[in-house]
């Protein structure tokens, strides 16, 4: 849900339901990395409600576009983390099985 103005699309507050610090803090981090963003932050109006308000103010681009780009960036970061992790696990397992063979009976 986007709360903004039809005239000025560069500032908006996005209210996401069923979300908490997990996604909101990560999104805030990727939003801050974007040079088009002048201000971004998140708040949780009440801890019993699973709702997060993310405020984005940009240098002119529509805020929803910038948020979408940040989500895609976060997805790319996650994919890279996953592939690096899988590779590291495979390398570790290979190295250990090699060690086991080298140690011998």
């Amino acid at each position, binding site marked *: 849900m986007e709360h903004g103005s039809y005239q000025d699309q560069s500032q908006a507050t996005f209210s996401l339901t069923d979300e908490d*610090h997990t*996604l909101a803090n990560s999104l805030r981090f990727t939003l801050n990395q974007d040079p088009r963003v002048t201000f971004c932050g998140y708040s949780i109006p009440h801890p019993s409600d699973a709702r997060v308000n993310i405020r984005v103010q940009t240098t002119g681009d529509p805020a929803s576009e910038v948020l979408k780009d940040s989500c*895609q960036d976060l997805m790319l*970061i996650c994919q890279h983390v996953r592939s690096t992790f899988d590779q590291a696990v495979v390398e570790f397992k290979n190295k*250990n099985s090699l060690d086991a063979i080298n140690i011998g009976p």
Partner: protein
Amino acid sequence: MGVDNSLRLGHFRDNFRVEVVRLTEDDMEFDMIGIDASLANAFRRILLAELPTMAIEKVLIANNTSVIQDEVLAHRLGLIPLKVDPRMFEYMSENDVPNEKNTIVFKLHSCCERGSSRIKVLSNELQWLPRGSELTVSTEKPAVDPTSRPRTYTSFNCSQDSLPEFSNNPIGPKHDDIIIAKLGPGQEIELEAHAVKGMGKTHAKWSPVATSWYRMLPEVVLLQEIEGEIAEELVKKCPVKVFDIEDIGKGRKRATVARPRSCTLCRECIRPDGKEKEKEQRIYWDKYVALRRVKDHFIFTIESTGALPPEMLFTEAVKILEDKCERVITELS
């Protein structure tokens, strides 16, 4: 996406590293270098609360004459970790009928004979029923069709052990020696337990990790060259032996930081000397040693309860964060 975004992503890709330190069947420790604290925390939160597992939820008690109350027994059964891949099953909502795709049924029937000593009911006595519930639903009106099978609490269309995943490895608790209850002579427990899929958010029994945590790598920096007697004193101060002595020729000794990773930040090395020394000889160590944490180096530890191996748990957690982003993108479009 502008040029600037891709530059950042490239920078992340170049600097991000993962190093596995320890990997066993149930736990793992690995280092993530070059990632931000918000992402590391997001992974930790997802591992604890948003990865699904199977755990016993409904317990149908036919007979319980033990000292353990029904609800306490049901609570204990719920906390038993089950060795089953939750990705094989679907969630069950309120209106769903329990069937072979969303429920696992266990039976427990244990009694202690009169005259024998007390027995312990262990988790290996939980018997898996691949064909579903055996307890029949009692109705007031007599069965219209006497040849039809009586209605039970679940409606399995096929037996679960006909599925390839379960045909050779039966479903059961991860540990066989968990004490569920103790029975005295003449006491009996007869019950059926239904396990469903859930997330740690709803109840901690559905959390797939015993726990998972991260700490940032401690950084111990020597602000000045520490030689001779003072070096020996410093090495002796540290309870986990972070410092070491290095010989630099002509019999002179210097202190170096050998094992910063084992530092527990107890700050013993920067505590100024107290009454054990004379006032003139007291050293203020904080001008020799600085203690910090490296802001983007996380030492992650994951201890699995047994449903999935820890490396698969982390991969699933990252996938869940991707799914969350995808959901936001579709909501915005």
